[in-house]
C-alpha cells in the first residue's frame, strides 16, 4: 500500500476509534430482559437488601445498582434521562422543586405511568397529587419524611422540662436553656443545613392547619405568601432568633455541627427531617436517648399539625427495561419489600404494614402521622424550583438581618409567579 493512502486511512481510523469511544451507546437500561439497572443513593443499604431479596425471588434476574451521592444524583439522573441513557429504575422525588421530581420530569415523558399498579390505591389524593402530573403516577416512595422537633431527653431532664407542646412553652424552653448555658434549638444556617425546616413546621400549623386547601388556592392565584399566615410564621421564626433560641453564629453553622450540638446535649433540640435522627444518634455519647414531638406554633396543642411528606422514591425509565422495572417497583412496595425496609431502621412506611413499630425516637409523632393530623411539605406543591431557591435565600437573609419579612415574602411571591 502506498504511504499516501496509508496516512488518510490511519487518520480516519483514529477518528473512528475516538468517536466510538465518545459515543453513549444508545438507549439506557440493562440491555437484556433479565438485567435490571437501578440508580439510587450511594450507601443505601436498605435498597441493597431489597435488591438481594428481589434477585432471590426472581432466579436468573441480575440487578446492577449504581449508588449516587447528593447532590450529584440530581444532575446525573436528569442528564441521563434526557439523553436516553438512564437506568431502568431511577430515584425520583415527589412534587416539584428539583430536576428529578415527578412534575419536572413529566414535561418530557421520560417516566412510565404507574397508575395501574396495585399499590396506587393505598395512597390518598394528596399524596397522589405529588407522585405525578395530569393524572399519571410517575413515582412511588416507600417512606414518609417527617419534620418533628427532636429532643435530647437527657438535656430536657437537666432543664427539668418536657418537650414543648405550645408556642409559649417553646419560648420558655429558650429561656430555660439560656439560663443553663445551653442552646434551645440547634440551627445549621450554613448551606445544606437545617435552617429551612423550622418555617415548614410553623406553616403546617399556621397555614395548612386552618386552610388545608391553601396550596390549591395559591395555585389559582387566590392567596399569596404575603397575604397569608406565612408572615406570622416568619415573625415567630425571627422572634425565636431574637430570643436567643438558636445556635450562636447560626449562619456559619453547618448541618453536622448542629447535629453534634443536639447529640451532645449542648443544644436541647433541633427541628429537622426524620432522616437525620440516625446521624444525630451516631454523634451521641452512649446512653443518650432522643424523643420527638410536633413543633407547636400556637398555644392550643390540638391545633398543632405535623409536616409529613413523601420521601424520595423511584420511577421507571420509559426507555428502559419497563416490564422488569415495574416488577421491581411492585416488589419494592410489597409487604416483603416494605418489611425489609422497616428492618433497616428509621422509616415510616407510606402504606399500612401489619405490626409496624416506629423507632423509639419517632414514637412521639407516630400517633399523629397515623391519625393524619399532618400537612405536606409546602415545597412539593410549588410550581417551579426557583421558589425553593428564593425561599432558602430569603430565610438566610432573615437570619442575617438583611431583609424584612415583607420583602422576603414578596420575593417568594415573585418567584412563585414566574
Amino acid at each position, binding site marked *: 500500500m502506498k504511504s499516501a493512502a496509508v496516512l488518510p486511512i490511519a*487518520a480516519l481510523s483514529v477518528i473512528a476509534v475516538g468517536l466510538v469511544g465518545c459515543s453513549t451507546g444508545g438507549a439506557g437500561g440493562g440491555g437484556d430482559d433479565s438485567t435490571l439497572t437501578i440508580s439510587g443513593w450511594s450507601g443505601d443499604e436498605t435498597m441493597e437488601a431489597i435488591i438481594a431479596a428481589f434477585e432471590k425471588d426472581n432466579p436468573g434476574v441480575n440487578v446492577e445498582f449504581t449508588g449516587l451521592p447528593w447532590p450529584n444524583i440530581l444532575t446525573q439522573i436528569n442528564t441521563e434521562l*434526557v439523553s436516553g441513557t438512564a437506568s431502568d429504575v431511577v430515584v425520583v422525588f415527589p412534587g416539584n422543586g428539583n*430536576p428529578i421530581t415527578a412534575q419536572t420530569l413529566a414535561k418530557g415523558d421520560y417516566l412510565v405511568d404507574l397508575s395501574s399498579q396495585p399499590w396506587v390505591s393505598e395512597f390518598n389524593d394528596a399524596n397522589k397529587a405529588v407522585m405525578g402530573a395530569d393524572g399519571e403516577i410517575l413515582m412511588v416512595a416507600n417512606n414518609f419524611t417527617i419534620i418533628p422537633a427532636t429532643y435530647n431527653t437527657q438535656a430536657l431532664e437537666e432543664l427539668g422540662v418536657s418537650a414543648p407542646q405550645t408556642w409559649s412553652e417553646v419560648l420558655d424552653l429558650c429561656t430555660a436553656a439560656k439560663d443553663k448555658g445551653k442552646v434551645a434549638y440547634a440551627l445549621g444556617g450554613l448551606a445544606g443545613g437545617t435552617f429551612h425546616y423550622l418555617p415548614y413546621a410553623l406553616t403546617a400549623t399556621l397555614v395548612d392547619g386552618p386552610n388545608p386547601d391553601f396550596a390549591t388556592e395559591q395555585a389559582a392565584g387566590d392567596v399569596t405568601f404575603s397575604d397569608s399566615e406565612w408572615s406570622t410564621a416568619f415573625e415567630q421564626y425571627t422572634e425565636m432568633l431574637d430570643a436567643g433560641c438558636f445556635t450562636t453564629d447560626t449562619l456559619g453553622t453547618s448541618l453536622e455541627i448542629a447535629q453534634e450540638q443536639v447529640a451532645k446535649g449542648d443544644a436541647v433540640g433541633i427541628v429537622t427531617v426524620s432522616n437525620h435522627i440516625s446521624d444525630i444518634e451516631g454523634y451521641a455519647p452512649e446512653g443518650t436517648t432522643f424523643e420527638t414531638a410536633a413543633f407547636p406554633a400556637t398555644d392550643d396543642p390540638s391545633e398543632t399539625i405535623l409536616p409529613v411528606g413523601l420521601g424520595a422514591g423511584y420511577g421507571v425509565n420509559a426507555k428502559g427495561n419497563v416490564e422488569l422495572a415495574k416488577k421491581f417497583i411492585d416488589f419494592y412496595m410489597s409487604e416483603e419489600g416494605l418489611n425489609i425496609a422497616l428492618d433497616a431502621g428509621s422509616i415510616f412506611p407510606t402504606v399500612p404494614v401489619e405490626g409496624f413499630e416506629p423507632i423509639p425516637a419517632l414514637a412521639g409523632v407516630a400517633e399523629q402521622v397515623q391519625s393524619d393530623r399532618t400537612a405536606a411539605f409546602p415545597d412539593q406543591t410549588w410550581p417551579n*424550583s426557583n421558589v425553593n431557591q428564593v425561599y432558602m435565600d430569603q430565610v438566610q437573609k432573615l437570619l442575617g438581618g438583611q431583609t424584612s419579612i415583607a420583602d422576603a415574602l414578596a420575593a417568594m411571591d415573585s418567584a412563585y409567579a414566574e
Partner: protein
Amino acid sequence: MGTPALRESATLFPKKRRRPHRGYASSVWWFVLPAAVLYVFAVVVPSAQGSFFAFTDWDGVSPNPSPVGFEQFTKILSDPNAVIAIRNTLLVAIVVMVVQNILGLLIALGVNSRIKSRNVLRVLIFAPVVITSIAVGFLWKNLLAPDGAVNQGLEAIGLGALRQNWLGDPDVAIWAIMIVMIWQFVGYSMVIFLAGLQGIPDEVLEAASIDGAGSIRRFWDIVRPMLAPAITINLMLSLISGLKVFDQVWVMTQGGPGGATNTISTLIYSNAFQLGRFGYGAALAVVLTIFVAIASAIQYRLLARQES
C-alpha cells in the same frame, strides 16, 4: 566539528537547501486531522450547542425548547443575584490575582535564597496545590466554623477580637473564600516564579552588585524584566481561575448566605442543573466566556508589550 578543508568546501559549495517533498504539507494535515476532529467534536460542537440554548427557554427537560432571542441576556441585568455574582466574580479574580502573585513572588524570592530549609519550605508551600479544591473546601469549612480552629487559634493568641463568623457573615464570607483560594494556589505561583528566578544568571546579579546596585534596584531593573514571562503566565492563569471559581464556593457556602457569595459559575450550576433554567444558565455561561476572553486578551497584550 569538521576539519578546516571540509569547512571550506562547505562554504564554497553551500549545501543546496532541500525543498520539502511535494506531499509533505498535505501529510502534516493528515496528522493534525484526528486531533482537530476530536477537538471539534468534544469542544467546539458542545460549546456551540450550549450557546444556542442561551437563546432559548430550555428547562433541561422539555424536548422542544422555544427560541426567546436575547431575553435570557436581558434577564441577567435585572437579576439581583446575577449582579452580585458578577461583582463577586470580578472581585475574586482581581484580588486573588494580585495577592496570590505578590505573595507567590515574595515566597519564591525567599525560598530561592540559600536558606537551609528551602526545599522543605518549597514542598510545604506547594502541597495545597495538589489537593483537590473540593477537599480543600471541606477542610476549610470546618476550620472556619464559628467554633473552628481559626477562631479558637485567634482566641488562644489573644486576638479574640478578630474572631469572625467567617462563612456566615455575608460581608466576610467572600473574603474568607478568597483567603482559602490564595492559600491553596500561592504555591503554584511560587513554583512558576521560582523557575523564572532560577533562569536568571548569577553573574548578572553579581555584576550589578559590584556596580553598586542595591537589592531593590537589582530586583526592579534585572529580576523583574527577566521574570516577565513568568509574570505573564502567572497573572493569566490566576485571573482565569479566579473568573471561573466554583469548587471552593460551592463546598463552603453554596453561594450563601442569602446569595452573598455567588459567583457566575455557581449561578450557572444552580440555574442550569438545580433550577431547571438551562437557557438562563447557558446565557450566564456565554457572559462568563466573554469576560474570560476579554480579560485574557487585554492582559496578554499589556504584558506582551512589557515583555518586549
